[in-house]
C-alpha cells in the first residue's frame, strides 16, 4: 500500500502504544477484575526464578542468624524468660475471662465466632522497594485461592490477594498506598479506614478529633468492608496527632507483621464460608 511507504515503523510503534494504553484503560475501568491470561503466564514464568533467588538468600540469612550472629543471646534469653513469667500470669487471667465470656454468650444465645479455613503459602518473590508493595506466594487458583481473599501471618493481617494465576498469586501488602481496610480500635471501638502510606506503616483515617485514642491501642479489622473477617489483628497505634484546624485525627499505625520478613502466610478462605 503506497500510503504505508516509509510510515511502517511509526505505525507499529503507534499500535504498541495503543495496546499499552488499552491495558491501562481496561484496568482502570475494571480495577477488581480477574487476572488476565497473559498476566497469569508472566506470573507463572517469573515466580520460579524469584523463588530460586529468594531461597538462596533465605538460606544464607538463616545460616548467618543461627550460627554466626549469636552475640547477646544469653541476655535476650533472660529477658524472654522474665517476659514469659509475666505473660503466663496474664494468660491465666485471660483464660478465666474467656470462659466467663463463653458462659455469658451461651446465656445470651449469641452465635459463636466463625473460624475460617485457611491455606498455608510461602513467599516466593517480593516487590517492597518501589511504589507498589506486593509479594508473590506459591498458591494459586488450583488451591482455591481467589482475588480479594485476605492474607494473614502469625502476627496479624498482611494484605489481600489481587492477582491469581494457576499456582501462584500476588498479594497487596497493607502498607501499600492502594490498600484500604475498614478497622476498629479494640479499646474504644472507634471505626476508621486504615490506609497504607507506602512506607513501613499505615495511617488510620476518618477518626474524629473527639475520640480518645492513645499510642499502644490495638487495631483490628471491623469485618464491614466485605474482604476481611471481623477481629483480625492488624497492629498498634504508634502515634496520634491532633491539629486544631483539622476535623480528623492523624493516627499512625504500626503493623504487627514485619513486611520485610514475610516467609509463611495463611490465606483466609472467606469465600468458602459465604453462601
Amino acid at each position, binding site marked *: 500500500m503506497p500510503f504505508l511507504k516509509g510510515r511502517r*515503523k511509526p505505525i507499529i510503534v503507534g499500535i504498541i502504544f495503543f495496546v499499552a494504553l488499552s491495558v491501562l484503560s481496561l484496568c482502570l475501568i475494571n480495577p477488581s477484575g480477574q487476572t488476565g491470561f497473559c498476566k497469569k503466564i*508472566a506470573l507463572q514464568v*517469573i515466580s520460579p*526464578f524469584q523463588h530460586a533467588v529468594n531461597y538462596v538468600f533465605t538460606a544464607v540469612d538463616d545460616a548467618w542468624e543461627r550460627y554466626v550472629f549469636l552475640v547477646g543471646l544469653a541476655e535476650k534469653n533472660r529477658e524472654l524468660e522474665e517476659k514469659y513469667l509475666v505473660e503466663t500470669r496474664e494468660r491465666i487471667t485471660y483464660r478465666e475471662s474467656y470462659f466467663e465470656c463463653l458462659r455469658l454468650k451461651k446465656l445470651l444465645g449469641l452465635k459463636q465466632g466463625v473460624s475460617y479455613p485457611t491455606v498455608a503459602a510461602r513467599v516466593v518473590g517480593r516487590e517492597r*522497594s518501589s511504589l*507498589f508493595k506486593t509479594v508473590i506466594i506459591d498458591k494459586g487458583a488450583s488451591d482455591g485461592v481467589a482475588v480479594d481473599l485476605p492474607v494473614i501471618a502469625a502476627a496479624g493481617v498482611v494484605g489481600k490477594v489481587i492477582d491469581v494465576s494457576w499456582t501462584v498469586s500476588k498479594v497487596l501488602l497493607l502498607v501499600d498506598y492502594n490498600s484500604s481496610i475498614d478497622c476498629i480500635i479494640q479499646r474504644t471501638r472507634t471505626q476508621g479506614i486504615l490506609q497504607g502510606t507506602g512506607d513501613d506503616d499505615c495511617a488510620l483515617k476518618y477518626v474524629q478529633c473527639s475520640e480518645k485514642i492513645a499510642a499502644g491501642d490495638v487495631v483490628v479489622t471491623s469485618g464491614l468492608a466485605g474482604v476481611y473477617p471481623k477481629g483480625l489483628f492488624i497492629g498498634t497505634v504508634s502515634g496520634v496527632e491532633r491539629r486544631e484546624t483539622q476535623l480528623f485525627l492523624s493516627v499512625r499505625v504500626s503493623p504487627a507483621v514485619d513486611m520485610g520478613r514475610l516467609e509463611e502466610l495463611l490465606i483466609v478462605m472467606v469465600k468458602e464460608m459465604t453462601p
Partner: protein
Amino acid sequence: MKFYLLMPIVSIVVIVIQTALLDLLFLGRISVELALVLVVYAAFRLDVVKGAFLALFLGFLHDSIGGFIAGVYMVSYLTVFVVSKTVSPHVHLNKLGFIVGYLSLCMLFQGCFVFFIYHVVAGIDLPASLFIHVFVPQAVVAGVIAPLFFMLLDRYGGIFDD
C-alpha cells in the same frame, strides 16, 4: 529474528534481577530500575520497532510482577522510550555526565507519570513524601548504575546489535 527470540529471556532475567536479587541485596529499601535503564539503552542503540517491543514487554512483566494498576509501567516505559528515541539523534551517549543526568531525569519522569496516572485517571492524590522516598533515591541509583550497565551491554549485549 534472533532478537525477538532472545528478547523475552533477557527481559525475564532483567526483571528477576531487579525484583528479586537487587531487592534482597538492598533490603527492600531502594528499587534499582534496571528495566528502565535497558529501555533507555534500547532507545539509543536499537531500531525503533525492536526497542518499542522491548519496552512494552519489560513494562508488561513489571506490571505483572509488582504493579497494582496494570499498564502503568508499560505506558511509562514506552513514553520514556519514545522520548529517548526522539532525542537520540541529537546527543551522544558516550559522555558519562550525560548518561547519569539523563537516566536520573527519566526516572523522575517515570515517577511524575505514575503520580499523573493516579491523580488524573484514578483520582488518587499520592503524597509528595512518597515521591521523595521512592523516586528520588531510584533516580540517584539509576543514574549511578547506568554507565556501568551501558558499558556491559556495549561489550556483551550481542542480541541488541542491529
